[in-house]
């Protein structure tokens, strides 16, 4: 077999520049063939997913929006070590550390905590490297299928602690579930 006749994909087609016959030059046959192809598509299953009502089936390793975790007592795990910011390839994370004051033991788990913790959702690529880097299990990417809401203002895409930290009720519920188990 010569190299000219081999077709690995099985779709190889030799193009020829031969004169068209009268029937081909009329184009009517070709047009009719084209019409039949589009007609087939008329009855084909539609690929549209109507987003707010229907949600696309996600992969089991899907990574959604971030959350800053609390432990069973509702204390924030994050110690503002900065490893997530360091590991972030998109440089989306920034934070400012602060020292825990006496009387705040129920709010923060360790002596240092993140006073400001911001993720720029326009920069974030949802790679999950922050989650891997975190030594305190503080940040992780949820399986939430909710997408970052659209906005006309760039400021709205910088998510602070108000949007990132796990709600207190959720932490309590998690603790209850853990005790039940």
């Amino acid at each position, binding site marked *: 077999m010569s190299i000219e006749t081999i077709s690995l994909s099985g779709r190889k087609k030799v193009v020829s520049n031969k004169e068209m016959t009268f029937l081909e030059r009329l184009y009517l046959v070709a047009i009719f063939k*084209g*019409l039949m192809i589009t007609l087939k598509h008329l009855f084909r299953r*539609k690929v549209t997913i109507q987003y707010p009502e229907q949600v696309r089936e996600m992969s089991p390793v899907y990574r959604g929006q971030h959350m800053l975790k609390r432990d069973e007592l509702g204390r924030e795990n994050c110690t503002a070590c900065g490893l997530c910011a360091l590991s972030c390839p998109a440089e989306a994370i920034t934070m400012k550390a602060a020292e825990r004051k006496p009387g705040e033991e129920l709010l923060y788990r360790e002596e240092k905590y993140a006073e400001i913790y911001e993720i720029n959702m326009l920069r974030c690529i949802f790679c999950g490297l922050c989650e891997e880097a975190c030594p305190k299990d503080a940040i992780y990417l949820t399986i939430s299928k909710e997408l970052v809401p659209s906005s006309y203002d760039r400021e709205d895409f910088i998510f602070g602690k108000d949007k990132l930290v796990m709600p207190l009720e959720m932490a309590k519920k998690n603790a209850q579930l853990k005790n039940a188990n």
Partner: protein
Amino acid sequence: MESAFIIEKSVVIVAVFALTMLMAMYSTWAERKVAAWLQDRIGPNRAGPWGLFQPLADGLKLFSKEEFEPNTPNKFLFVVGPAIAMSTALMTSAVIPWGDKLHLFGRDIILQATDIDVALLYVFGVISLGVYGIMIGGWASNNKFSLLGAIRAASQMVSYEVAMGLSVIALLMMTGTLSLREISAQQAGMNWNVFYQPLSFLIFLICAFAETNRTPFDLAECESELIGGYHTEYSSMKMGFYLFAEYANMFISSTILAVLFFGGYNYPGMAWAVENWGVNIANVIGMMALFIKLCGFIFLYMWVRWTIPRFRYDQLMHLGWRILIPLSIVNIMITGIVLLRSEIAAYLGF
């Protein structure tokens, strides 16, 4: 002139006008739906059930857009352009027979705005006026793209009108009348002209695509070369008028195709229905038959639009002048020979 006659005609005219506008409106909706379906999408479905209020939303949007006017010395012509396009698109519907007649309030109501004996000539005349709307609009826009689009549209429409007229001549030799009403009546039963004049039908169909500036002949507004063509500078409802006129034209040309070649309001068994169910019911069914036929043609327009790419300009002119016109002349000769076969045979001494 008695007042009942005036009332009758006014009702018919208003009904035809309303129908044309409604059809043009819902053609835009249908176009989006058909386009979506042919591309495996769903299409507009948010405004109302199945997106049925989409045309209203589109109209509202067009009305609320800024009314931009380019810096042109022809302000008057700039406004006249879309007005001509729209009015010529609507004028054609006057001579179309929507049904035979209804028998209401003790009088026969003819389902046609006016039955003139040169109806087909009138249609051709009004259609050729439509080119002024595009030409004037493109000229008055004071924009090179608009002008190029308008020139293209004008030359295309003028050259395809020749082939269109010639293709109809073969049909007229058979029918012997220009009145659309009589042409409809002659096709009673399944006696449709398309079976006797398939070539004429094909040429007429192709020319109708070109006349309405639809794909594959929409060179006048081809985005890749001319931005928007003749309506580049138009915005708001003036733009809406141009688009609306295109859909109205599509509706009218579909109707004319159905009337000339597909039997108009006739359907198999109409004579039986008139005898057994009465004139009114038979003609209401007839109107629906015409409606189904013309909807089929409108679907064909859309189907072709989303299948075939645009012709190149020289291909377009080649097709018009060097293929369709000789073909329709040949068709005329064949029709003549067939019509006069006994005379010819006698002359040749068979």
